[in-house]
């Protein structure tokens, strides 16, 4: 028989971006351990509505850990304490009866709060728009098997491409830096043969855009711990290498033109 938990929740409530927010405490009995964390919040919201209090706004969609919509600070940790797990895949069996759980939105200057636990993460899209792609007109592509890619290279690119763009790395970072996100996007493409033509232009444009919005990386490594896809900070080192080379190469090319 599954356990039932009685919890106390401290939830960040903020009516809109420019309003003052505060932590509100809720008594939450009768929570099945088989529920996901978001299903627990669904129940809390049903109860709030019945009592005439506006439900807690939170972001979610696929509830399978892949769309990257959900994310909240759970007891100070991005997506909670279970490693490699997005909030929607966190289940209540990881909690104990009587636990006090504090739930807050991502905290970062680049992610302003929209309402309650919902933040605006559009700065991440700006980084991709700056160069996170390979230019290929629909229909212009060569035969797919023309360029064999060694499996280890394909695997390394894939490990970076697994990023779901949730923003946990930024939220976990004491500097609100976006190096892990940016390096995952850069290195996915920079490692592949198809990505070579735009390699140095890409890294320079993406890093420079990142710096307009986010803080600086000081190698805390909190991002890697928080990442629901367990993306390695090694990609930051690879990105930094490419960025330094780019600053040199891109200048040289300019002087030749």
């Amino acid at each position: 028989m599954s356990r039932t938990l009685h919890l106390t929740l401290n939830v960040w409530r903020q009516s809109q971006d420019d309003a003052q927010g505060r932590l509100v405490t809720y008594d939450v009995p009768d929570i099945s351990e088989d529920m996901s964390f978001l299903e627990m919040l669904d129940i809390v919201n049903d109860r709030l509505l019945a009592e005439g209090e506006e439900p807690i706004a939170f972001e979610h969609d696929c509830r399978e850990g892949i769309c990257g919509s959900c994310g909240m600070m759970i007891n100070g940790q991005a997506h909670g304490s279970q490693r490699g797990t997005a909030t929607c895949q966190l289940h209540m069996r990881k909690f104990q009866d009587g636990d006090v759980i504090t739930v807050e939105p991502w905290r970062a200057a680049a992610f302003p709060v929209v309402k309650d636990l919902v933040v605006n993460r559009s700065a991440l899209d700006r980084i991709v728009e700056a160069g996170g792609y390979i230019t290929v007109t629909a229909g212009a592509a060569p035969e797919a098997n023309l360029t064999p890619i060694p499996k280890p290279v394909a695997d390394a690119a894939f490990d970076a491409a697994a990023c779901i763009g949730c923003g946990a790395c930024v939220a976990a970072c004491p500097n609100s830096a976006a190096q892990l996100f940016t390096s995952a996007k850069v290195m996915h493409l920079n490692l592949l043969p198809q990505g070579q033509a735009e390699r140095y232009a890409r890294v320079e444009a993406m890093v420079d855009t990142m710096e307009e919005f986010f803080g600086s990386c000081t190698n805390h490594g909190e991002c890697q711990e928080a990442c629901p896809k367990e993306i390695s900070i090694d990609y930051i080192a690879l990105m930094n290498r490419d960025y330094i080379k780019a600053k040199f190469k891109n200048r040289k090319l300019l002087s030749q033109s």
Partner: protein
Amino acid sequence: MSDVILDGKVPSGPIEGRWDQHKFDMKLVAPHNRRRFKVIVIGTGLAGGAAAATLGELGYDVHCFTFHDSPRRAHSIAAQGGINAAKNYKGDGDSIFRLFYDTVKGGDFRAREGNVYRLAQLSVDIIDQCVAQGVPFAREYGGLLDNRSFGGAQVSRTFYARGQTGQQLLLGAYQALAQQIGNGTVTMYPRSEMLELVVKDGRACGIVARHLHTGEVKSYSAHAVVLATGGYGNVFYLSTNAKASNATAIWRAHRKGALFANPCFTQIHPTCIPASDDFQSKLTLMSESLRNDGRVWVPMNSDDTRSADQIPEAERDYFLERRYPAFGNLVPRDVASRAIKVEVDKGRGVGPLKNGAYLDFSESMARLGEDTIRERYDNLFQMYERITGEDPYRLPMRIYPAVHYVMGGLWVDYELQSTIPGCFVAGEANFSDHGANRLGASALMQGLSDGYFVLPYTVPNYLSGMLGEAAVPADDPVFTAAEAEVRERTNRFMATKGTRSVDHFHRELGKIMWDNCGMERSQQSLEKALSEIPALREEFEKDLRILGTEDSLNQSLEKAGRVADFFELAALMCRDALHREESCGGHFRVEHQTNEGEALRDDDNFAYAAAWEYAPPGSEPVLHKEPLSFEYVHLAQRSYK
């Protein structure tokens, strides 16, 4: 009921050359004229993202809308298993014709041959395109692309990216779109939900959208509108669809005159994690690819309480292998789902609620080694473990069918144009290519084919006739009227001030639909649903409670609009299921089955696509029929034995 005949405008001539000939016959827009044409694209999944990116790349003035916070989050992202393409890289007898043949047969002969052939042709271009974009498909040690098998096929033609194929393909489309946004050819409107299609003089001329953060209701005009807004499986409440997936955009277009085709064709996916309790908010799919290495079974004895690993071989019933020796565990989804339901209904279900069958990897792990299985499926195994608390490396998974995909959608012709000129529909939102049952790994193929390779030819063909015409201004009375409709609906929801949440009504509607219009339908069950839906709807209109305001982020208000549309759609689904007196693919009428319990089609009377014309609640929708003819794949009882 009248029988209005619809023409899909499929070109004539040998099927192999139809698309090429048609591409030549369609009119072009010269590069310098393209920026004069405004095109709205709703939705940023595979179909919408690819269409917006490609039309932007061609030079059109594209305006793209999503209700998500970013164009990278659409539900395409959750597709796990793979994408089909007739590359024949495995040298095992695949060809464009075979993919076409498998898809028409898999769809139980209720799809349009011309469209399916084009899809099979374009499948090879999709793989080239995606690899060039940097999509990290699985590779063999020699560096070439790997393939695996999927249901309904005896060849290996499925390209995959671990268990995250949809994510990687969507990121490819998103990146292409991001490039166009960065270049300024596409204007992106995130957090904007389309709530009306606007039509003037019979042609689509724009939309009304609500900004989800500010509640601002605004008109956007264009020369053409593309709807790529996905499927409506969430009408069942519990489904594998993302929570926000909905029918509102296509239903709004339907209300404005776009015919809705085959609404009852619902795909129930055989391998999902069984529901564990009433609080369940959604069901989670376990990829069909698992059936490559997993064997489906139930205990012979329905009273068996031993754990799976304690039940000896001789006391297990591998019922798919027993009933369908040729395809075994890889029969198509509709066939597998019904077979599992039969066993569970017999009382042979497994798990605490006896509501599932085992999907067992022990034999594969013994044969291939645990590492190989880990390499192929580890992310799926981990997801299963997180949700159920059970380790599938030690005990078999428990699975049960769940609503996953809808083959029905807005009716479109060969050019993907709906019955409203200027309104195009792509991806799961249209009805075009999968007939009564979609084969695994074909949804991604269709979305990308529509977006990258079909709409970029057919939309310009429509636009070319409008050269020199300005778009209808966004302050035209048709827009003002549409905005007023949106505001009126919003105000009505806010003013109801009842006692129940939107989710309560959605859950109740889902129960009605699952019990009466789910895996099995009968005249009796469908009539029951048709009497229960209006009653529940009436209650919804009286007793809905929404707190907060309409001019800020209000997730209950968003859901209310979507659920209101689900009510009308649910009734149409039941009506369609009731009129289709045959069983085919995902539509199983208990009155129409063979002695062995297989679906029994009636080709003499039902070889057509049923396209419904909107009628307000209380009146009868009008049926239009598009007759289907099969020149290349001969009509036959499907057999996977």
